[in-house]
């Protein structure tokens, strides 16, 4: 599979995430779109990792580990995302308790 | 403590071992398991029946004498005695030629017991001077409509000993000897 396909797929997902962040007003959905962006990155990293692996094999090294760092990075992204979600949702819930809304357009108390 | 059966609950704090709850749980598990193997108390009802006590009060039945005549004279004592006011009746005079049907000159032309109201107290039986009504050992009637539970005389009358002695005997049951 040519790597370009994966790049375009990831970029498309990434951009859909960005559009979501820009257009939606519900904090939770914005957050979800951010997760979508993370996932697009993950997919891209895995694709690259496999690409580099293949390149290394084609270059002649047999039992190579080239490319595994990309997947490890993905693992770390997932780890971080999990932590971030726990905190983020706690914040959103805290906000909701006080305001009874998660609409980011209500976030204007600081604009004066 | 009136009944002497009350037991003081021990409120002392749980020991560490008890606090684990596990022993308690396991004990409980084995208690339930022991029941698994116990004899089952279930009686397969329609096939098997429990033996009733002699004084069991079932559905009322209107009695006949040995000759198959109705004993009821529509005196109304049973209706008066009934705490649930479940009994209604209408008396009628015996016409000539009906002696084989009714024992006395007066008889109940209509006799109804609303079984939805009856509480099976047996006062009607007690009140009846003619031994015309008594509580049988039949129970668990079933019907599709409420109307069906207003038992007419036809429903209540015992089978005729002349025409169907077997059914009569069955209906009389253990009471036969007693009365």
């Amino acid at each position, binding site marked *: 599979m040519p790597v370009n396909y994966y790049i375009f797929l990831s970029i498309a997902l990434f951009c859909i995430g960005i559009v979501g962040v820009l257009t939606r007003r519900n904090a939770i959905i914005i957050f979800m779109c951010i997760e979508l962006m993370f996932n697009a990155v993950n997919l891209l990293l895995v694709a690259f990792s*496999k690409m580099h692996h293949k390149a290394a094999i084609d270059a002649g090294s047999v039992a190579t580990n080239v490319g595994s760092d990309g997947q490890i990075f993905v693992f770390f992204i997932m780890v971080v995302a999990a932590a971030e979600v726990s905190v983020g949702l706690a914040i959103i819930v805290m906000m909701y308790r006080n305001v009874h809304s998660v609409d980011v357009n209500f976030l204007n108390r600081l604009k004066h | 403590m009136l009944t002497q059966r009350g037991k003081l609950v021990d409120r002392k704090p749980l020991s560490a071992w008890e606090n684990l709850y596990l022993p308690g749980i396991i004990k409980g598990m084995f208690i339930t398991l022991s029941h698994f193997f116990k004899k089952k108390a279930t009686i397969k009802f329609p096939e098997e029946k429990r033996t009733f006590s002699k004084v069991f009060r079932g559905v009322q039945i209107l009695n006949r004498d040995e000759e198959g005549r109705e004993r009821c004279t529509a005196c109304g004592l049973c209706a008066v005695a009934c705490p649930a006011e479940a009994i209604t009746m209408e008396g009628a005079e015996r016409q000539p030629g009906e002696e084989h049907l009714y024992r006395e000159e007066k008889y109940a032309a209509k006799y109804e017991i609303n079984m939805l109201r009856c509480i099976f107290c047996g006062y009607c039986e007690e009140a009846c001077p003619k031994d015309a009504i008594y509580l049988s050992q039949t129970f668990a009637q079933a019907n599709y409509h409420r109307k069906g539970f207003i038992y007419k005389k036809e429903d209540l009358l015992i089978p005729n000993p002349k025409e169907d002695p077997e059914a009569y005997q069955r209906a009389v049951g253990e009471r036969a000897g007693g009365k």
Partner: protein
Amino acid sequence: MSITQILFWFLSVLALFSALMVVTSKNPVHSVLWLILTFFSISGHYILLNAQFLAVVNVIVYAGAIMVLFLFVIMLMNLNKSVEPQKNRWIKIAGGIAGGCLLLVLVAALRNSEIRQQVVQVKEGEIGLIRNLGRELFTTYVVPFEISSILFLSAMVGAVVIGKKD
């Protein structure tokens, strides 16, 4: 078209479609569900790339934990009605156009990238297996791995600080 290619296209279209639905759904719960579908199709891609470990971790972490939390919060807040009035249509259109432009720019830029000719290895390769990744993780990457525990500790403290009602 080989079965791999069919799968690739199927999963890609599924991923893109459900990602679009995430953004366009009015109901947040539907958004969550579409997002889960997206994650599944991405997991499918991982399997296609023989990154088994990541595929499963993706399902466990994202679909199994993160999205449940999202769903949980949305349900708790009872956001089932769409609470976004269509006031700022222009902002939405602007956002859409901005995103589209970004997409165009990136695609246009990366179309001629230097690695265009390279090929991704699908279906085979050992690196995505847990044995390999585990060894890497606990030898080369053991320091970051331990460091990420700090992240979790802080997230934990944070969840307590923020989340606990007082």
